[in-house]
């Protein structure tokens, strides 16, 4: 990553302290401490509080104290050395004053969601993100003692995610809306969810169509209410020609059933003589999967703190980076997506071979 960034920290005169936000990856053997030898630090002490605490990385806000200075420019590589951290992301410092005079960064500060944030390499962004939106019920119970309010808040978070993906030019997005196993939930919750889905499909998706988003639904459509099925077919038809983002919504979806459906298709084609059973192999299965179901995701984000796949896209996640975070889905913002993309960027994907060797 090219290191051109400085963090500007303003020390407020009354307390002589300022905040910077660090993206930490704890390195074993290092303790989190400040050295006094650094020329850029005239700080007598620090304290920190964890924010955005995710499964492996953590955003930590560090408060720096300095009686003598009003502000300081802290170069990123110095900070990385001092704090033994993975990268420095100074949201708070940057939002108040641009860190550099770089015009691109200045542009970004004006509307953080609308363009690619700093430190993200557009070549290394994931091309297909899959999301398991878990934690709505818990969020609703925690904030409003009502699971259904959580689901409603989840829809807002989903809209924000779609917005981000459009602006950051991530071409494919798949979300897990309803699983085959969710039918076991209390019937009021299931009824409310379907009400929410029909509302979403008829009202909010119109807005997405205007943004040139192509929408597809995968899953077992036969168990859904007929009015919802009708709306779904209509929306798919209307958005077929759109090209900016391809949004796939997995409704009543089960990963195992997906594989079984592809097997059934192959059998039907084999019976009709379109293919021979000796032609059936991994590549063919992969082609069928991409044509009739969802393509392989690069990054799978699971919110809600659970560490499992829950029967979502079992075939496709063979080489997908899994990113599991404890944040509940309604709390998922563009900052969490930024963190997930930073995590993805730092991964070395070898697909079983070695880095740098011909595959």
């Amino acid at each position, binding site marked *: 990553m090219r290191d051109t960034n400085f963090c500007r920290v303003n020390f407020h005169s009354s307390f002589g302290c300022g905040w910077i936000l660090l993206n930490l990856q704890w390195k074993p053997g290092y303790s989190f401490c400040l050295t006094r030898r650094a020329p850029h630090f005239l700080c007598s002490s620090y304290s920190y509080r964890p924010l955005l605490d995710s499964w492996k990385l953590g955003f930590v806000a560090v408060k720096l104290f300095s009686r003598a200075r009003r502000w300081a420019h802290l170069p990123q590589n110095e900070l990385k050395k001092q704090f033994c951290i993975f990268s420095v992301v100074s949201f708070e410092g940057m939002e108040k004053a641009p860190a550099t005079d770089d015009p691109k960064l200045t542009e970004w500060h004006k509307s953080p969601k609308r363009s690619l944030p700093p430190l993200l390499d557009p070549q290394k962004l994931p091309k297909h993100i899959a999301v398991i939106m878990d934690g709505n019920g818990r969020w609703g119970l925690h904030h409003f003692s009502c699971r259904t309010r959580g689901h409603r808040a989840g829809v807002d978070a989903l809209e924000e995610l779609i917005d981000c993906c459009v602006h950051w030019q991530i071409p494919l997005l798949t979300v897990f809306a309803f699983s085959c196993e969710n039918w076991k939930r209390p019937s009021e919750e299931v009824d409310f969810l379907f009400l929410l889905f029909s509302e979403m499909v008829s009202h909010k998706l119109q807005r997405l169509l205007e943004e040139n988003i192509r929408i597809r639904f995968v899953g077992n459509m036969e168990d859904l209410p007929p009015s919802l099925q009708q709306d779904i077919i209509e929306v798919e038809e209307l958005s077929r020609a759109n090209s900016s983002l391809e949004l796939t919504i997995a409704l009543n979806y089960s990963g195992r059933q997906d594989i079984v459906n592809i097997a059934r298709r192959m059998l039907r084609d084999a019976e009709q003589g379109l293919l021979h059973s000796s032609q059936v192999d*991994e590549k063919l299965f992969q082609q069928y999967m991409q044509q009739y179901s969802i393509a392989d995701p690069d990054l799978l984000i699971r919110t809600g703190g659970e560490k499992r796949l829950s029967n979502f896209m079992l075939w496709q996640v063979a080489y997908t980076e899994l990113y599991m975070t404890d944040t509940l889905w309604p709390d998922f913002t563009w900052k969490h997506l930024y963190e997930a993309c930073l995590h993805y960027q730092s991964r070395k994907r070898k697909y079983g071979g070695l880095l740098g060797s011909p595959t």
Partner: protein
Amino acid sequence: MYDSLCFTDFGVAAWISKLYGIFISKITSLLFFLVQLGPIPRHLAIIMDGNRRWAKQRGLAPSEGHPWGSKTLTNALQWCYDSGIRQLTLFAFSIENYKRPEEERQRLFELAKEKLTEMLDSRDIIQRYRVKVKLVGDLSLLPEDLQRLMHSVMKETAENEGPRLNICFSYTARDEICTALVHMLNDILERKLSFKDIDASLLDEYIARGQGLSKECLAPDIILRTSGEARLSDFLLWQSSYSLLYFSDRMWPDFGLWDFLQLLFWYQRHWREYQQLRQRQEHCQRHKEGV
């Protein structure tokens, strides 16, 4: 090590180290006893990743990490037996690993031959604990002598009723699913089955048949991956639909008893939710099969 000590000290040092050894083994047994007071996973799957990186960190050649990894494997087998885990599945060699350089592949095959020959020895823990070993994967891609050795190990341990050990060698989950699918399609085209029989539990049966297991023991309770990578890398995709995923930052040769116990304690913390989930899932499946 004892060269610098005088004659009388030699006896004392040996006595102290023996006492220390006994002390450590007592503590270990106590820890295993404590762990077994709570629920233990029935089936653990491990992706043993990080050997090369571990070797590089210590200044060795990358392919020299694998023998150290196999030492940790022996320890892991012992820990699994001591904690009461009934089934262990390991990811030893993927079909994608054939892309690696010839020298490393040969080294891995040599290591596999060594380990398998040890297993045939009656003093090895495999024979002592009556472990049933099964080698899963597309074994036809491997060299002849390795295949023969594998078949003899499987034959030797076929009658054992103790814990099970499945070693995935020359394996990818997608290949496993496709092979099961091909068998299923052939059976259907030969009219042994009908089209409407195709469902998830049928594919379960075919995959289980390929692995030589029964349907119920397929799904792992925990999938452990060392070295901090958070991917499944084509391992047990079909079976992992409800498994708990545990990603450890330690490299596989560094994976120690304490990390293993941490894994078990973590499982015990999440056990209640996991049980509820499995019950719901089994209920769903029985409901579908009933319909």
